[in-house]
């Protein structure tokens, strides 16, 4: 069914190229209306915000190694900032992403995070381990003008490879299981739907437009808290759109980008396994919606090697109840492309995508 829709979409796009932005917005709205919602207070392994390697040529292996720092130090009720929180959260993540294009249309990405979650209040608690690994199967639905316009869709799974049973690192409290949002893993299988649209601006070829939408359907961890609780993180929808500009400074090559990201997270749900209340209930003070702005700079060290630095700042947050919410996020890392067949370097779109990571 989806393929039929995509084929119709493709035909329409070819005939109505100038209407692309309207069409894209429409597709985003359709996705948004289908989504239901994740919680903030989870320090937040930044999986969704980092998914998706750039489009690449066939038989090309792409790799990125990035470090991501997510600081949650702001206490909010709804849209109102209370003050800096007594309990501060940080997530440090080293992410290895591998992508390989088997054909012109099919590629696969793997996302392997190593996560460190910390909570600082009157004592300090941390966990660190491999997080949940994500595998994404991507299909290039539409490619026009030698990849100047590309629409890619993907389906993936997040596997419960991360530990979800860490106990406190505080002396004397070693027997106490830490809360779900401090665990490196979720203990559940998630389904991920992802789409990306890139388009080189015709009248200004060094500039490109990009958008992404991600929907994560959360699975259930039925043995959290030593089997006492069943826990389900809230579903999540994210959409991002922005522009990228390539700039030459002498012999140096840079890609600058500015994107805006909307994130809607639904409340976490839970039930107590021995309780007479058998249905899931929403956990208070979880869920909400955020808008972030994300400036980014990529420096091309070599034609197939780049370094990227970007910062994510919340410009709007409307959260459920009172929560510790993101203050800022830093992300930096290398991207490397290894072609197994000789090919042309650096098509505009893949540079665009990389700069938007």
């Amino acid at each position, binding site marked *: 069914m989806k393929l039929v829709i995509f084929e119709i979409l493709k035909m329409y796009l070819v005939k109505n190229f100038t209407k692309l932005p309207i069409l894209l917005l429409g597709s985003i709205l359709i996705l948004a209306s289908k989504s239901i919602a994740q919680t903030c207070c989870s320090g937040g392994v930044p999986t969704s915000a980092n998914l998706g390697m750039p489009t690449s040529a066939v038989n090309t292996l792409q790799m990125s190694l990035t470090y991501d720092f997510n600081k949650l130090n702001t206490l909010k009720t709804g849209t109102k900032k209370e003050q800096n929180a007594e*309990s501060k959260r940080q997530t440090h993540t080293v992410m290895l992403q591998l992508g390989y294009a088997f054909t012109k249309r099919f590629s696969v990405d793997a996302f392997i995070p190593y996560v460190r979650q910390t909570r600082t209040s009157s004592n300090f608690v941390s966990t660190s381990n491999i997080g949940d690994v994500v595998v994404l199967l991507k299909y290039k639905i539409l490619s026009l003008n030698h990849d100047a316009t590309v629409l890619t869709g993907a389906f993936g799974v997040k596997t419960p490879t991360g530990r979800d049973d860490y106990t406190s690192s505080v002396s004397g409290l070693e027997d106490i299981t830490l809360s779900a949002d401090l665990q490196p893993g979720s203990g559940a299988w998630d389904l991920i739907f992802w789409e990306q649209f890139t388009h080189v601006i015709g009248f200004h070829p060094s500039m490109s437009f990009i958008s992404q939408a991600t929907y994560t359907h959360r699975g259930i961890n039925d043995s959290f808290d030593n089997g*006492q609780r069943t826990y389900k993180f809230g579903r999540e929808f994210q959409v991002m759109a922005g522009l990228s500009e390539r700039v030459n400074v002498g012999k140096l090559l840079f890609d600058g980008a500015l994107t805006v990201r909307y994130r809607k997270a639904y409340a976490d749900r839970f039930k107590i396994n021995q309780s007479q209340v058998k249905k899931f209930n929403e956990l208070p003070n979880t869920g909400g919606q955020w808008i972030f702005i994300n400036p980014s700079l990529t420096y091309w060290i070599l034609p197939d090697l780049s370094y990227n630095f970007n910062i994510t700042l919340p410009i709007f947050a409307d959260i459920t109840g009172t929560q510790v919410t993101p203050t800022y996020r830093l992300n930096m890392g290398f991207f490397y492309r290894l072609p197994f067949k000789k090919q042309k370097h650096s098509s505009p779109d893949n540079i665009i995508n990389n700069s938007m990571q």
Partner: protein
Amino acid sequence: MKSLMLKTSAILLFGALLFSGCSSSDSDTTPGGIDPQVNNGSGGTTTPPSSAAWLIPTNCVADGGPGKDGIPSIDNPKFSTDPNANALSFLTNDNLLVAGIKVGSDIRAYPYSVLNWHEITNDIVGNKPLGIIYCPLTGTVLAWDRNVNGSVTEFGVSGLLFNNNIIPYDRNSNSNWSQMLLKSVNGSLKGTEITTHPMLETSWGTWKAMFPGSKILNAVTGFNRPYGVYPYINGAGQDYRESPWLLFQNCTNDTRRPVKERVLGITAANGNTKVYTFDNFPGSNFTAIEDNFEGEDYVIVGSKGRNLIVAFNRKQPDGRLLSFDAVQGELPVILKDNEGNKWTVFGEPAEGGSLARLASPAISYMGYFFAFGSFFQNLEIR
């Protein structure tokens, strides 16, 4: 070019180093300390502590999420005496609950609207250093003597819960305590019992009517919190106080009464506990009932309409056993004994004189039914 590569590598390496820094892994005579009569829900057998470090089974201890002092205690409380003061503007409804205390002539109330966000208030009432310990998840409030082992301490919120009930910690020894067990359950003071001072729980409307000039804990707490907002309503609009769900696992569940029904619990010296529901005290008039529990004679007086239940021992220090009737329309006077004396909600003689204050039960406080059911085996219900 190479130097740039080196710089960028250094930045990434710095990130990795940051990462690698982590490791994986007046009549305050109430005796304190109750043995944990918790069980595993499979028939009432007592579960031994699962760790030598704890007096309670750690599988029923939960990390609430905010961490130690993530919910900040109020250590410099401020009070207003005018009920219409701006600093009390969060008291928008006469049905909101407050906890009240009287030490000597010092009468204070602690609105749950504030306690919901702080749980603990370190205060001095009538020259007594007291910790007002409130748990929003079990609906229980107790005044703890902060004089522990000969020195005055402060209590803070550990961020841990046992059977959904707050685990305070004391800042002198860093030991963890159980509010409802009234003893330290972890740390260097493990096993040490706490002394409590009688408190009552009622509605803001009833309190105002009883003690119009009393001191009310106000919003000048040193923290910026939305005191007019109840923090345990979920995104679906379900209010924890009125919903059957709990946030964390209990060691045992007692299903004989509604989970969040507010009851008065009386715990005898041997730890056995009996709860009294508002069904015994219908309407707006006060009703007094006399009861014998674990060899002690009590009078329990309450009014559902006034949102108040309190209990006292009937036996006087000289051995006389008094009989009581409820008094109407004379708040804070609620009882009259068979000798013609009238008594207030704090068990004090209404007309002063040389009469001693009525003794309170060993331990009595209001709370949600499930809390008493999860802490006390063989719980009696009236």
